[in-house]
């Protein structure tokens, strides 16, 4: 009997788990001075289990993470510094598979910031009292993040071609351009739509009071009857509402032309704002002359928008797992964001406030949506908070 009590287990109930060291080097541009390479924030995230580690680079720009369990990770690098009166934002992003000790580098690019930012992006839609989806209330809010008056004339809203369900088909172009399925431009000839410093304009799918119980949805979180602009698609058979209070966007490109502009409610629509040079006619000519097809599709044309024309961009994905299908290049958005509560939640993503100067809100813009955006917030157009 004593021998039986002493029998060891065939299964050793102490897990023989593996852990590894990950050593990453921030691969900066040549232009970044040596004295500014340390102190970059590196966030090392497990893509499956929703946890992350944060560390800062050393003088030589490297960082080490110990005791990392095997799996799939992303490394996000965010750094800012001031030099000779200019502020520089650096971003890096890379995927790291950990199944052994890792020695890897993450490309870090210098990204520019402009006066305009996408402040709020509401795409998830909401529910009606009958439990049906209501997505007419989608909108994009762009904000004058500078200290001077700016003019919204000619700013284009660009929707990326891919829904991030697969590898970016246009990866071969990412150093120079993004590919769009929709390009719609704010009308005007240069000084028709002034926007004060710290103010915003809203481009609505439909510029109406969506909380109206007859024409809208009483459960909708937003009233967009004061929207400055709306996406209006004219069709002989009708379908889209033309709100009289909102000026219609100019339709430059709409590859899958439906009855209205509809952003993917689950988070497939990554968007950007761009300034294509020239008059409205010249912008249209540019779009007409810069189109591309997929090999797999002979009758669809998509627009090519150079990265240099992009003012701001938001890489919106479905969820953490789909982040591996990121579409936008690092210099436009080194990270990603999403509405965690999912589609029909009535929630949106909104940029974080960086600072407030004399009542003027300046939103965070490091060109990294992981750092810059709040998830799952109630949409509040024109409200600064």
């Amino acid at each position: 009997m004593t021998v039986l009590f002493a029998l060891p287990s065939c299964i050793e109930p102490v897990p023989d788990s593996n852990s590894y060291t990950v050593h990453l080097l921030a691969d900066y541009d040549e232009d970044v001075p040596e004295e500014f390479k340390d102190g970059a924030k590196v966030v090392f995230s497990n893509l499956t289990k929703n946890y992350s580690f944060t560390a800062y680079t050393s003088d030589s720009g490297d960082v080490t993470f110990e005791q990392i369990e095997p799996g799939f990770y992303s490394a996000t690098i965010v750094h800012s510094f001031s030099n000779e009166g200019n502020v520089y934002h650096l971003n890096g992003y890379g995927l790291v598979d950990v199944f052994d000790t890792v020695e890897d580098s993450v490309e870090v690019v210098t990204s520019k910031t402009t006066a305009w930012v996408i402040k709020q992006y509401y795409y998830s839609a909401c529910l009606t009292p009958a439990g049906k989806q209501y997505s007419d209330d989608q909108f994009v809010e762009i904000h004058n993040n500078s200290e001077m008056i700016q003019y919204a004339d000619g700013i284009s809203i660009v929707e990326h071609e891919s829904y991030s369900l697969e590898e970016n088909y246009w990866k071969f172009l990412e150093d120079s351009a993004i590919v769009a399925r929709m390009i719609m431009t704010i009308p005007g000839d240069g000084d028709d739509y002034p926007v004060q410093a710290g103010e915003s304009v809203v481009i609505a799918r439909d510029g109406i009071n969506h909380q109206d119980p007859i024409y809208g949805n009483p459960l909708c979180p937003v009233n967009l009857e004061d929207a400055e602009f709306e996406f209006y698609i004219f069709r002989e058979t009708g379908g889209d509402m033309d709100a009289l209070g909102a000026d219609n966007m100019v339709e430059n490109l709409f590859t899958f032309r439906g009855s209205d502009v509809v952003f993917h409610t689950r988070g497939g629509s990554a968007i950007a704002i761009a300034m294509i040079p020239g008059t409205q006619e010249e912008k249209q000519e540019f779009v007409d002359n810069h189109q591309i097809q997929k090999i797999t599709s002979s009758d669809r044309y998509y627009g090519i928008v150079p990265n240099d024309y992009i003012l701001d961009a938001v890489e919106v994905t479905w969820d953490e797992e789909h982040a591996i299908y990121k579409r936008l290049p690092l210099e436009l958005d080194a990270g990603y964001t999403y509405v965690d509560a999912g589609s029909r939640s009535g929630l949106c993503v909104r940029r974080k406030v960086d600072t407030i100067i004399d009542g003027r809100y300046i939103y965070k813009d490091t060109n990294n949506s992981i750092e810059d955006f709040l998830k799952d917030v109630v949409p509040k157009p024109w409200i600064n908070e």
Partner: protein
Amino acid sequence: MNRSALICTLVISLSVHSFAQQSDTLVKTSQDIFELMDILNPWLHTENPAGMQFNPGISISNLSLNFNRIDGDYRRAMDGDTLQKYFLNTTSYTTVGKTMLFGSFSYKKSYERNCNFTQLNDPYRQTPYRLIDTMQRDDVYDREFFNLRGGISSPFARNFSWGISLNMDVGLAAQDRDPRPRNKVLNMDLAPGILFTSGILSIGINMQYSYYNEDIESDVIEKNVQHAFFQLHGLDTYTRHVAASFYRLYERTTLGGEGQFGLNTNHFKSIMGGQILFVDEMAKDGRKAGDASWSYLKDDSRLLGNSYRVFNATTFNHGRYYHHLKASYTSNYILGSEIIQRLEQVGMKGAVNWVDYGPEEKYGSTQTDLKINYTFLLMKEKYLENLVLRLGMNQHSLEEIYRLPDMEQSFSNRTFSTSVQRSFYMGRHTLAIGAGVSTRKNLSGTLDAARENFLTRYLVQPDFNYHTSDASGFWFDAGYSVELNRLFDKFYAGLRAGAYRSEDQKERQHFNINTGVIF
């Protein structure tokens, strides 16, 4: 309950009784005979069905209805506030020549209210890989289970007997609030065995095979709404998906065997033995979006385990006095592995699937149980109890570890219990009353969680507090039976009520009422 099932139950019960070759209408028995059986035949403590050869040579059947209610706040995190169970049971021991037969059929219907988080039929089923949601919406878990057990034992050569037993549980459980799971549960146990008897010595051996399957389909009925489903991996680790539906399949196979050695005389019966079991369980997930034609299927985790058990059961009787001592020591070891995988595009056509990159051992647990029970019986007649006194001690411990992040939990408790029951015989009528107390003392407890998250707050810490709190309880029971002259031998009814209270003044009350007939 389905009316046809009820009719079948009655027909089966009456048929088993009518086929018995030995009529025991002259043998006085009570409903307690079913508890007495394993005192009269300690082989019934083993998993070897051939041991039924030592059953007393009586044929007796029981048909009973039971109602059970448990409520109170002294509970684990995923237990309901209230549990109500109704069950119908019929059990029969029958002797046909030298062949011993046993059969039992049960139908159970239960309602467990306010069991939050769990999407599993039994969230404490010894697996860290559980599926939960975070919607605390006063859910009711509606369960309907059927159980069928049977065994047969017969000699087949000089000194040799064989036996085989089968146990099958099938049932359906469902919740009534989004995200609402439907759990289809199947458990099957099969044990063939043989027994060698020579004089007072007996040696037995049997194999054991079990298959458990739980198929969970969880849906969100509310249109266009999604919920977060959390796949737990041990202590406070998890992964999650937001979806309008979720699917999980548990498949567990258990294989092992047991060996027994017994002594059997007129006044002394003793059996000792050892059991080894090996367990292998997989949890597989699939997620089907509401209107999409694709589904993402993946392996979530794997459990490997083995369990050892050594035991002894001894009965000594002298005239009307019986002394029964039962002791067992069980140790369970479990190793859990998570499957490392990633969503990847497969092929050129854009199909997306989870691709496995291999298992990683992350979780381990050791659970031990030492039980010692003594029963003293003073019999009025051969199968009629006069006085029953029970003493028991149980020492239970659990140790869990998780690696990266490093976490561990352990505790050890010792429980003492005692009860007494006295029967009063008044002609054809019998009255029995009893009472009991138990006390649990926590010997040790350690919880070292890596981080404070909602799992730690709502599940890990509350369950740890439950398992490491001292508690005591009492119960009393009363029963009545009357001999019948027609169709059935005896009618009985009884009730039991009691309560447990922990050191932090939480309580759990239980109430049971039963009635039935012996024939």
